[in-house]
């Protein structure tokens, strides 16, 4: 079973970490788009969400392709936190 541990870790990172990262980037992208002129907030969320599944797929492929698991974990964790924080900060006060 120990032989499978790195593989399982990578699968979990790709499926769950990739989802978290994609969600965070959609939050950020939605906030950025909502700051564009004549873009209602709900439509900005829609536009970001439509792109979100491409972001997720790209994240999964990248997380399987990247050599170092530690680096992948770091990128996912930092990226998710930063994107969420930036998205929430940019999105505050928008209607």
């Amino acid at each position, binding site marked *: 079973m120990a032989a499978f541990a790195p593989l399982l870790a990578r699968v979990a990172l790709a499926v769950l970490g990739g989802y978290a990262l994609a969600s965070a980037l959609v*939050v950020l992208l*939605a906030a950025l788009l909502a700051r564009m002129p004549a873009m209602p907030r709900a439509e900005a969320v*829609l536009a970001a969400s439509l792109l979100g599944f*491409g972001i997720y797929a790209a994240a999964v*492929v990248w997380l*399987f392709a990247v050599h170092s698991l530690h680096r992948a974990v770091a990128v996912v964790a930092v990226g998710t936190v930063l994107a969420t924080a930036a998205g929430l900060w940019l999105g505050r006060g928008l209607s």
Partner: protein
Amino acid sequence: MNRPPRPAARRKESLRQALTGLHTWGGLLVVWVLYAVFLTGTLTVFMGPITRWLTPELAAADAPPPSAAERAQTVALAQRRLQQVAPVSHFWVIELPAAAGGPVRLSWEDADEQAVSAWMSAHDGVLLAAADAPRRTSGGRHFMRMHYELQAGMAGLWVVGFCTMALLVALVSGVVIHKRIFRDFFTFRPGRGQRSWLDAHNAVGVLTLPFQLMIAYTGIVVFYATYLPAAMVTSHGSVEAYLSALKPRPPHRDETGIAAPVGDLSAWLRDAEQQLQRPVELVVVDHPGDSSASARFAGPMDESTAARRLGSTTGGAVLFDAVSGAVLHVVPPRAEPGGVPLAAQRVMDGLHFASFGGWATRWLYFLCGLAGTAMVASGGLLFAVKRRQRGLHEFGRHTPRAYRVVDVLNVATMAGLALACVAYLWANRLLPVGLDAARPAWELRVFFAVWLLALMHASLRPAPHAWAEQGGLLALLCLALPLLNAASTGSHLGVYALRGDGQRLGVEGVVLATGLLLVAALWRRRVRVRVQGL
């Protein structure tokens, strides 16, 4: 000269290896669910015609539609009937018939808060007994619900969503691991076992790659609000709040408990048809008998507009206060509110549902859907055939058992699900009409029972025998279906052709053609087995 590979080339090779593993194992994990999603999705392209074939009592699609006066009379009769069976209810639904004089479908919620439906005669407003009404069936809708939720509700929706994401990843990684994507396009070496399956998998995947990418992506996007709600929650507080901000609708009217009769629906029908400039096909009354009642009159999708342009077009609807008759809300036909994001979503929905271009588009989608089904199936078979010739010992001492599981699941999903689909058509003709309201559930029971039997059979027989036996039975069921139809309803291909009933003709013709192709395939296989002793 034999130089060591340069670092860049080596890195490229290791990327290829990593993604080959992802493609092979990720693909194997989802191949059976994806096969079910692809096959039933391909059938869903013709959901309307399949439902028509499954309801032989209804008139052909091109029978003359009811006139405005007939529609008004039908709605008046339906209202009188509903007021009698459910004077106070959560909802009433009146589905106007497509053909003049055809039966009218009524649905309502009874005193026990159960949704019930019945057919009403358009002539005298009498509810039809089971023997006189169109048979109850789950219809082509069954294939659609298999397609997006495996008939398993929310859990199924998430399983299908996960597997579709895996399909996207498999398509992307599949492109990367190809050394010669263009040459594979033209390569097919039949009759050579593993090599042929790889060629078939590559050729069909590469040839229809744009369609497969499009259909996978737009399929996920249909349920984007369920699958990716984070941004909706952070921006609007909840998915519901986001959705009502995206498409403003009149607020829900809570029940007041004050009794109030529903006004004259047939008068509002005329008003609504005047506003929409088209016949109404659906009337929904919320909270009839309560002072909060409202009535929505909806028009059909505009076929001629939809045929020429992409993006789902609404048929429009008018909402009335069902007590006072005041107009609460109007959605004009072909309304396309919102900016670019909403337009993009409409286009993606239209692309997924093939709601443009008419029958030619449907047939193209059907063929591309079959190609997708073949792509997934050949992938699963390739895994098994490759390892049958040369075991790779991936599972240590459990390897033979793991390969056996793959073989069994391949037969049970690929042949077994096809069997279950045809058995579903058989069940529709064989189950007694007297089962009435329980009938749709019985059709599903037959479908899943046959699928389960196929799984048991596959797990008891050696794989080559299981393939041949289930394939043979499938061919038999397909070829005999026209006989069953003729015996039980008196209709067959000839009758449909003479009546100009292209939809039912198409369904039965495709089933018959499938049976003939299967016989040809099984015959070829038999010859090969005899010659090569395979």
